[in-house]
Each structure stands twice: as structure tokens, then as C-alpha cells.
């Protein structure tokens, strides 16, 4: 993730990241528990955590790849401009039967309207 999905990212890096992460998620399916006891088994939570982390990492990657603009800590070197017209939206990732899909939701403003950062 540090290599492929840091603050500065671009299409090539992200695509490679998505492919690698997909592979890691496949490998994770074969994960085994070596500690088979049920008493303070600290390996079990770390395996569960690993699975969740891979899902989150994959979601982050596909979301970043789709968002062709720059915003805050998401700096696409290939799309350096912020694009409020198209991307003033939350990215939603849904996982169903092991496939991930993207959808979007409008941002609702209350008191403060978001403006571009100028520093």
C-alpha cells in the first residue's frame, strides 16, 4: 500500500496495486491457523484482522483508481486538479459474495461549503 497507494498516486501504480491485492486476497483463502487451542489464542484475532485489512486495502485501491481527480490526501499525479462537478461525492464500496462494487453518494452541506484548499 505504501508503494501503490500513498498520498501521491497514479493510474499505473494503482492498477498494479489492485492486481497485487487481488492476488493477496486469493492467497488469504488458504490461510491456516497453527494455534488450534481456544484459550487466549492470539493468532486467531490476528488472522481475522489480516482478512479485514486486505478487504479494506482492496476497497481503498479500487476507490482511488476510479476517482480521477485530486482531493486532500488523494493526490493523483495524472489528475492534479480537484473536480467538484464530477467528484463532490462519497465513494461507497460494497462487498457481496466476494466481489466488490463501487457506488456514490452526494455530499450534503450544512453550514460550511467545502472549498478548495489554497495552501
Amino acid at each position, binding site marked *: 500500500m505504501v508503494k501503490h497507494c500513498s498520498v501521491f498516486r497514479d493510474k499505473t501504480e494503482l492498477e498494479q496495486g489492485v492486481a497485487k491485492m487481488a492476488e493477496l486476497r486469493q492467497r488469504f483463502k488458504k490461510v491456516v*491457523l*497453527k*494455534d488450534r*487451542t*481456544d*484459550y*487466549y*489464542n*492470539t*493468532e486467531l484475532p*490476528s488472522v481475522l484482522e489480516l482478512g479485514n485489512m486486505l478487504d479494506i486495502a482492496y476497497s481503498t485501491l479500487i476507490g482511488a483508481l476510479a476517482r480521477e481527480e485530486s482531493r486532500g490526501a488523494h493526490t493523483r499525479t495524472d489528475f492534479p486538479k480537484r473536480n467538484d462537478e464530477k467528484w463532490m461525492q462519497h465513494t461507497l464500496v460494497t462487498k457481496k459474495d466476494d466481489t466488490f462494487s463501487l457506488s456514490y453518494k452526494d455530499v450534503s452541506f450544512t453550514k460550511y461549503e467545502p472549498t478548495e484548499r489554497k495552501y
Partner: protein
Amino acid sequence: MKIDLKIRRFNPTTKNGREPYYQAYSIEASEGMTVLEALMSIAAAQDPTLSFRRSCRSSICGSCAIKINGFTKLACSTQIIPEHEKAHEMVLEPIANHTVLKDLIVDFDPFWKKLDKVKPYLMPPETQPEGRTKEVHISEKDAEAIDHAQKCIMCGSCNSECNALEIEKKYLGPAALAKAWRFVGDVREEGGRKRLGRLSDDHGIWDCVRCVHCVEYCPKGVEPLTAIERLRSRAIQEGIKDNHGAKHVEAMVNSVKKVGRLDEAAMTFKTLGLLRSLGMIPFGLKMEMHGKMPHPHLFPQIKKIDEVRTIYAEIKRKNKNAKKKPKG
């Protein structure tokens, strides 16, 4: 750099682990690596059955206190190479004064129960005292008096090394007492007197033997002993003196005033009273046999007793002058 470790293992649910044993591991340590990182690398690459607690990895959550070469430390704030250079070995064990559950994991229930006992929350007055508006101004000095006690991360290192806790499991212990002071010493607190009464009961503030271990081993500079001493002097200032501890202090003060030194035999009597002192006779005889019994008649009043009394008079005068607000 290759470092060999010995880690104390225990698992009451398996046949081989029922009796504690030491297991040897070996790791490749890099500069700056902490003991916790070493443990995590062993669990990840060599032996996933090794159990220990950790969370923040930056000495703020208080999960990872263990014994490193015999002394309680945070695994995440101890670098393995300098530690190994010092001790020429790397023996990791669970902390002391707690029941071991598995490997380096101990039962923290008694720790939390003791903390509960000191009611670790502020008890402000129910109705605002006269002249007090909504806000209570806290001066820098007020904050300073309790600041040290607020830094506790509940790691249990102090309790692990506490000598009083080792002989009396019911003793509230340094961590809980530091927390108690955090509230007793708070200017917004109202329940202070009541708290001090409870804290002066058996297994409270007077159980501490002042070995200073809790100050030495606390990774956060909490100084529980400082808190305990402040609680003790507050309790005496509040007139809560009907207990062995306060009586002992009074006897000490009076003995020095009278003869210029501690008359230990007479102090036993004053601290415990007649009947309980009689019970101490076998203990006294044992001390005598080992040449440790103090002989008050051999040490009469010191020569320059006048100087001692001058000090007492001076303290009295100062106390009178400073009769505003008692400070910590």
C-alpha cells in the same frame, strides 16, 4: 545481530503447558528494534502460539508490561540490543504480583477491581458552594499538585514491583492509590474527606512500606509513592488518626521530640496498643536472637536534644503562619 531469547511459557489448557517452562527462541535483531517487535516477529514467523498483550506500540496503551531480564518494563519502549548488551541475556517473563493466565498474559481483574474501589471519578459538590460560579478556576499550582498522577496508563508495572503487594494481596497498591490522589488532590473534589477515611482503612495508604519501587519502575513518571505520601499527610491533616499508620507516624514524631531518636520498642507499643504488643513478643524474641532488637535503655536521650526541639518549635511556628490552606 542474532539475539537468543528465553520466554516463559504457560498454558493451563494443554498437557505440555500446564507446568511453566522456558522456551528458547532466536531472532535477527536490527538497530532500534524493541522487545515487543521481537515478540511480534516470533509470533509471526516462528511460533504463533506465543501469547502476549500489546496494542499501541508507543507506550500509551499500557498493555505490554512484562519482566525483561527480571525487571518490569514496557516491551514497546525497551530496545532489544542495548538491553541485551547490558544483561548479556534476554529473559522475558510475565509481570509479578498477578496471576498468569497464559504465557506473558496475566489476570488484570484484581487491578481493575482495586481501581474501582478508589472510585476513579470526580465527586464535585452537589450544590455549588457560595460564591462559586459555574466555572472553577484551576491555577497552575492546583494542576501541578495532581499532574503526575494523571499520567498513568494503567500498565501495572508499579504493582508488579511493589513489595507491599507481594506480601499482602489485598493492599490497594500503588496504581490505584495514585489514581485516588488524582481526585483527592483535585480542587473541584468534595468527597475528599470521606475518601481519605476509606483509604486509611486496612490495606490502604498505610500498607505501603516506601520501597520506592513504584516510582522507579513507572514508565510514565507517575510517582505513586509521592501520591501516597500526599494522601497520608492529607489524612492526618483531616484528623483521620485512628489507625496503625497514623499512630505510628505520631509515635515517631513524639519519640524524636522526646529523646532525639527513634525508640523502636516504645513505638511498637504506641502503634499497636498493649494487647497487640504482647502478641509481638515472640517476634521480638526472634529479633533479639538475631541481634536486631533495639535496646532503648542503652540509647538514652541524645546530647543535643535542645537542637531537635528547636526544629520542632520552628515547624510549629511555620505551620501556624501558614494556616491558610493545607497543601498537598
